[in-house]
């Protein structure tokens, strides 16, 4: 990461200091974003490795690669790591941290020290999770359902729970920081309806993080206490209710899905407008949709529990709310499509990622309707249909958007351009690899293959083999950016301040930006996306 030979007028944030110490004690939101990016990349590939093991095991119906116990630990580890150590912090903690102050014309986030502390919490939580893995892992599934997790599992549930508990605080503090930053540090003229949609999505996400994460943290503490003392409110032997745990867990974990997908929607709005050189279609509706999703997202958690012993009437309420939340999601897809109309569309890598996102998100979102319909959910829940559905949203959606965003802002972050040809190739490969991996799982689920199965009936093998083959391609496609992006750090062409000729405030400063972002605090005079 040396850009020593260049002598730019302002020193960039990367040149502020080179030693490890200068990084580990930095208060600069941009450096903290890069620290997060390193952690997240590490956990992404670690979680990916677990997924690879799972897919490899599932090539044959018999459980011949590993024992049932190891398999259970592999998918649990995959879930825990991917959800809490990759997906939830991915866009907010890296792109959000880096871009939020830049996009609103601020010098930093409101609480820079708290920001660094959040990163240390993230690392601390990660250490516990790795410790849990090294000592033998945990086999409860990422959902920690009671009473299995409290009274029956003999694996290291406590360590995993502590890891997730700690990382939860990282996300609370990040959210808190974002809310305060957006409220208090906007540049002059940056009114609420001039905020880029990415900033709006960060605001919505921060809201969800701050209001939902404490519920998870407390629920996990209850699990830990129940495991330690053998009594508690989820304990059926006392007449306690394991379904209560599911209520609390999903009160967090359903909104958590929106923590993953809302930032992705924000990123994609930026990418599509820049790629199509057009104003976003229906800006205000997009804003309302973001807020609507964040708020209504809190009211739908019970759709995870239609067959869990929840009352029939409560299920009906949760079902209708789940249908309602599909409306703002639909609005977003239609508006993105309409933004392309009469555009001037270039197909640079970020745009390919964004278009891929829209397609995959739509497939994932629409299959969500099947699961929101109570009568269909009875058959489909806890099968591979659900697995396919949420991977379409979280991997097809969130990861595509994350990578698209990384490519789009790479010149801003590093000051270098990557190889466009490789980047386009990776995006296309990823799209096809993804569909080959997960589309067969819809069919598997419809045919009745339950999830979390180590062994399965021979009739399901064809689709499983296809899925595993797709996973191989997908794995390769995920590894590619690692190489060409790393290569670009040294050998990439230098990027100007605004290589995409984009309109956001972040493009008005140098690439990479100086430590305090702007030479002069900008004054904003018009709305975002001033293309045409």
């Amino acid at each position, binding site marked *: 990461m040396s850009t020593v030979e260049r002598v730019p007028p302002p020193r960039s944030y990367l040149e502020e200091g080179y030693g490890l110490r200068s990084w580990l004690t930095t208060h600069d939101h941009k450096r903290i974003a890069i620290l997060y990016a390193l952690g997240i990349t590490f956990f992404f590939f670690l979680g990916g490795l677990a997924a690879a093991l799972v897919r490899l095991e599932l090539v044959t119906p018999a459980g011949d690669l590993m024992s049932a116990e190891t398999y259970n630990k592999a998918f649990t580890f995959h879930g825990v790591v991917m959800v809490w150590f990759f997906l939830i912090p991915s866009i907010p903690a890296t792109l959000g941290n880096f871009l939020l102050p830049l996009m609103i014309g601020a010098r930093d986030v409101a609480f820079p020290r708290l920001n660094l502390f959040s990163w240390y919490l993230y690392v601390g939580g990660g250490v516990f999770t790795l410790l849990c893995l090294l000592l033998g892992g945990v*086999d409860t599934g990422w959902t920690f359902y009671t*009473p299995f997790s409290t009274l029956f599992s003999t694996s290291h549930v406590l360590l995993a729970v502590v890891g997730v508990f700690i990382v939860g605080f990282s996300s609370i503090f990040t959210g808190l920081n974002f809310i305060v930053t957006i409220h208090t540090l906007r540049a002059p003229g940056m009114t609420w309806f001039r905020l880029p949609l990415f900033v709006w999505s960060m605001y919505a996400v921060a809201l969800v993080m701050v209001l939902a994460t404490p519920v998870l943290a407390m629920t996990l503490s209850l699990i830990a206490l129940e495991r330690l003392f053998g009594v508690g409110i989820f304990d059926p032997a006392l007449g306690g209710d394991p379904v209560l745990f599911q209520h609390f867990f999903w009160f967090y974990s359903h909104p958590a899905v929106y923590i993953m997908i809302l930032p992705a929607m924000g990123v994609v709005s930026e990418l599509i407008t820049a790629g199509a050189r057009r104003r976003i279609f229906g800006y205000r509706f997009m804003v309302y949709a973001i807020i609507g999703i964040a708020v209504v997202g809190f009211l739908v958690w019970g759709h995870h529990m239609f067959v869990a*012993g929840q009352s029939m009437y409560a299920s009906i309420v949760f079902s209708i709310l789940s249908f309602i939340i599909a409306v703002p999601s639909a609005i977003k897809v239609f508006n993105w499509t309409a933004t392309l109309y009469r555009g001037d569309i270039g197909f640079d890598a970020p745009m390919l990622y964004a278009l891929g996102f*829209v*397609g995959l998100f739509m497939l994932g979102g629409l299959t969500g309707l*099947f699961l929101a319909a109570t009568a269909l959910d009875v058959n489909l829940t806890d099968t591979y249909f659900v697995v396919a559905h949420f991977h379409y949203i979280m991997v097809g959606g969130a990861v595509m958007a994350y990578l698209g965003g990384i490519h789009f802002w790479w010149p801003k972050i590093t000051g270098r351009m990557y190889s466009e040809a490789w980047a386009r190739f990776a995006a296309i490969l990823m799209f096809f690899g993804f569909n080959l991996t997960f589309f067969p799982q819809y069919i598997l689920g419809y045919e009745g293959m*339950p*999830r979390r199965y180590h*062994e399965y009936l021979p009739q399901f093998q064809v689709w499983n083999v296809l899925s595993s083959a797709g996973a191989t391609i997908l794995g390769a496609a995920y590894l590619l950016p690692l190489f060409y992006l790393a290569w670009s750090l040294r050998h990439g062409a230098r990027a100007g301040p605004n290589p995409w000729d984009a309109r956001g405030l972040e493009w008005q400063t140098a690439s990479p930006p100086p430590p305090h972002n702007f030479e002069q605090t900008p004054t904003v005079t018009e709305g975002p996306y001033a293309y045409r």
Partner: protein
Amino acid sequence: MNTLPQASSFAPDVDHLFDALLLLCGLVVVGVFAAMIFFCVRYRRGSAAERMPARAHLGVELTWTLLPFVLFMGIFGWSVHLWIRLRTPPKDAQPIYVVAKQWMWKVQHPDGAREIDTLHVPVGRPIRLVMTSQDVIHSFYVPAFRVKQDVLPDRYTELWFTATQAGTFNLFCAEFCGTDHSRMHGEVIVMAPADYARWLQAHAGIGLAAQGERLFRQFGCSGCHDPQSGVHAPDLYDLYGHTVPLSDGSQVLADERYLQDSILLPKKQIAAGYAPIMPSFQGRIGAEDVLALVAYLKTRTHAAEDTDEHR
């Protein structure tokens, strides 16, 4: 693409809803993809297409907000209609008792037949499964019937269906329940009513009540509750269906719940004139055994012995 048999009375209805939703979603996907591809080609950078600025239009926005909303509500209504049917067993449904444990399904037919990992049912008769778990949460899932229900510890959940076609269908545990979760599968064997009757006759083990009688001695209940016993404990003969005066002055009808509670939580309701000395059997006695004991106590009445309903 449907290779899954439609073996219950719900299956065709669920599939209709599925197909309708699939069609609707398919139309949306095709529409949006077509529009995206069309725009991407026509307005690609450097093409000669017209690019006058297009304004967002409130009417357009409202159309694609309200139209999906109305369609979604339609699907919701349809689904709820079916859902209520799925969740409301008919009064005449035949109950069968299912106990799940790591990692097997234990089935108990009312007349004594017991089986493990298989469930025999007749064609055309509504069956109501009443299920509980001895340890963690399991889920009873028969894809061919389109039914699934979680099975919870210390609580009963129910599930009903009417099988419409003879054959053998897969039964899975759908809720992750520990190491051998994926091996916790079984079969539902649907038989013609006559075959089913023959099967029942061949397998009718000792009835529940008879098991209960054995357990009554095995758990030492008879030590106190026999009339000859030296302990001052209520004689349980002719208890079921009668009112019992309690020590707090109130009265209670000795129904199934009372009997079950008296075994598991003996101090909850103390019969008048007796000391609260009976130990709780909570945790010391399996769910099926409680049922057997209750069934046995129900036979120890004049009425039951007269009509000889029990086995």
